């Protein structure tokens, strides 16, 4: 091993290498080995195999960390593996696996199946790896762009559907703007410290007083970029359009994994180099959180497209997650982590049910398409109910545990009014979630629809997301412990 690629470096980088390797191989396989469309399902297995390999690598890191504690730095501190990073890596693995499983059938039905899709999914996850593990501005930025570019393409994957084209374009334009703002903020951070390593930046930032204007500008532009990525108000405009236009499986993956990855980035930066300027960003985040909950809830009430409705609800969830960061103590960050995990599973689950509805005759996106689902397919209706209850935060589902921690941290830090507002919005949210419930359980379908048949993959994905949503809710102990361990 040469001096600039040590065994530690290899150990840390291995999961990303594997993901990239399998991504390239998937692309090649699509091109050389399985060019015929009916063989495409082998690609799914190939991706899953890649995930298994990556998981083994993650698991070894996990074991190493739990034995030795602390963190592993590689490449002179550019990459770091700690419990925090691993926590998010596991989330990425889980959501990618579920997304892959649910994708095959969906794209077949939409008759827009591209083998490149699977390679791109892995590449996106690769970008996410660097978002969670990167400890250096350039790595973070390029990682973020790798993920974002992949998503621009994935959103536009239904090339014959104008809505998909539009969604991709809008996402791209606003995403590029936000990346520009983010990198502008990064450049100021670099200017303040002369380094791109987060640790050194942290020292430089800490030496400035909190009224420093350049610091403020840096914080503002970086926050603008980050809030954009997690679809928090006032930078949420892209979310409803993009969620609606994108293929539903991509919407699910975008809503779940991309948001989790962006949150990892956000936490890394806010709790790392910018931790000392908390007074600067905390009020901004509190305002953004309130605005997100308000806009998300109010706009969701009138939506007739389920995907749009869930998009606004995800804006609302971004608000709750931000509140955890606003509280900012141990409990709050723990709450953010748990909320993120919970959010990933329930969101994937809810979109999964929507993809199942997608058939030749209907896209399953209009809220009326859910009519009579209870009669057509009780299992789906009940799973969807559980996901919606969880999204609303009703015990004993996982969503409650997430919200509980947010409330706990807010009260612990004395933000009573924020807590009260967040609590009232729980009740508002139930109103539009239960519009979906009403559509499924009460309304009758206009024309008799056949019962839904299920592929094995969908069954597995549904069972997995459902089990997690219920499991975290009923017995949260191991998950809470996991999150606590992450922060130690």
């Amino acid at each position, binding site marked *: 091993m040469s001096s600039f690629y040590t065994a530690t470096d290899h150990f840390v980088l291995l999961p990303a290498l594997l993901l990239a390797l399998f991504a390239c191989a998937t692309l090649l396989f699509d091109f050389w080995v399985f060019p015929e469309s009916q063989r495409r399902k082998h690609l799914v297995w190939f991706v899953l195999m890649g995930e298994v390999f990556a998981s083994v690598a993650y698991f070894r890191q996990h074991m190493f960390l739990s034995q030795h504690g602390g963190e592993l730095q590689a490449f002179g501190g550019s990459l770091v593996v700690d419990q925090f990073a691993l926590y998010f890596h596991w989330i990425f693995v889980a959501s990618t696996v579920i997304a892959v499983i649910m994708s095959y059938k969906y794209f077949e039905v939409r008759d827009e199946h591209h083998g490149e899709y699977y390679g791109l999914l892995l590449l996106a996850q690769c970008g996410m790896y660097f978002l969670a593990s990167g400890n250096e501005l350039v790595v973070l930025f390029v990682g973020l762009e790798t993920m974002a570019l992949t998503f621009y393409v994935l959103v536009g994957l239904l090339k014959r559907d104008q809505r998909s084209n539009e969604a991709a374009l809008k996402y791209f334009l606003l995403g590029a703007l936000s990346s520009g703002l983010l990198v502008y903020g990064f450049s100021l951070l670099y200017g*303040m410290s002369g380094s791109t390593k987060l640790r050194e930046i942290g020292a430089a930032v800490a030496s400035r007083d909190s009224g420093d204007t350049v610091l403020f500008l840096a914080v503002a532009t970086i926050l603008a970029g980050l809030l954009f990525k997690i679809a928090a108000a006032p930078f949420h405009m892209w979310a409803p359009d993009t969620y609606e236009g994108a293929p539903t499986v991509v919407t699910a993956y975008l809503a779940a994994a991309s948001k989790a990855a962006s949150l990892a980035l956000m936490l890394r930066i806010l709790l790392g180099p910018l931790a000392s300027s908390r007074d600067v960003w905390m009020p901004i985040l509190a305002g953004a959180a309130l605005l997100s909950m308000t806009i998300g809830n109010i706009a969701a009430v009138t939506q007739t497209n389920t995907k749009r409705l869930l998009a606004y609800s995800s804006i609302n969830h971004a608000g709750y997650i931000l509140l955890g960061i606003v509280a900012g103590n141990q409990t709050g960050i723990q709450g953010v982590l748990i909320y993120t995990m919970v959010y990933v599973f329930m969101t994937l689950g809810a979109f999964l049910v929507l993809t199942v509805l997608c058939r030749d005759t209907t896209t399953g996106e209009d809220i009326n398409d859910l009519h009579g689902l209870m009669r057509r397919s009780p299992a789906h209706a009940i799973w969807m109910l559980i996901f919606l209850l969880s999204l609303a935060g009703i015990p004993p589902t996982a969503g409650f545990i997430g919200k509980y921690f947010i409330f706990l941290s807010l009260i612990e830090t004395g933000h009573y009014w924020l807590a009260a507002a967040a609590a009232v919005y729980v009740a508002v949210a139930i109103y539009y979630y239960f519009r979906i419930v009403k559509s499924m359980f009460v309304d009758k379908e206009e024309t008799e629809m056949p019962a839904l048949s299920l592929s094995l993959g969908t069954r597995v994905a549904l069972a997995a997301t459902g089990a997690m949503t219920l499991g975290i809710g009923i017995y949260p102990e191991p998950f809470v412990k996991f999150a606590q361990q992450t922060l130690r």
Partner: protein
Amino acid sequence: MLDTMFFYMFALLAVGGAILTITMRSAVHCAVSLIASLAGVAGLYLLQKAEFLFAVQIVLYIGGIMVLFLFVIMLVNLDSAAKERQFHRRWIGGGVAAGLAGASVLWLLSKGAHSFGSPAAQAAPSQDGNIEQLADLLFREYLVPFELASLLLLVAIVGSVLMAKKRTS
């Protein structure tokens, strides 16, 4: 003194080109203005002894990206677009908001700029070794992002092909 003059020259080119970019009617003209602006920025790099960046800016940005833009402009035939209204109906609001934001940002920076103290007492990089040092840094310290950039470009290639190719079946 010469440096100062050159700075103002290039800065004028950069800002003027930028303003023209967002105001010109025809997309081709916009692209040409953007090239001018980028060239101005490239000149600024040269002024600051960032020769490699200067080269990259010219070759990659002006040579690569802008050609891509021009290519697409030709491909999608924007002639009709040039005849239409160029600005949003809400452009005044947007412009004013952005202008205000810019003014406040300028003010912020002018207040805070003093905080960048004197340059660190560090050995100035030898003039001729700039690119060597850069390469050294790039392949040692920035090995990870360098490799990651290859993935980024892979995504770009696959993605743009996927997006732009015609459906065959």
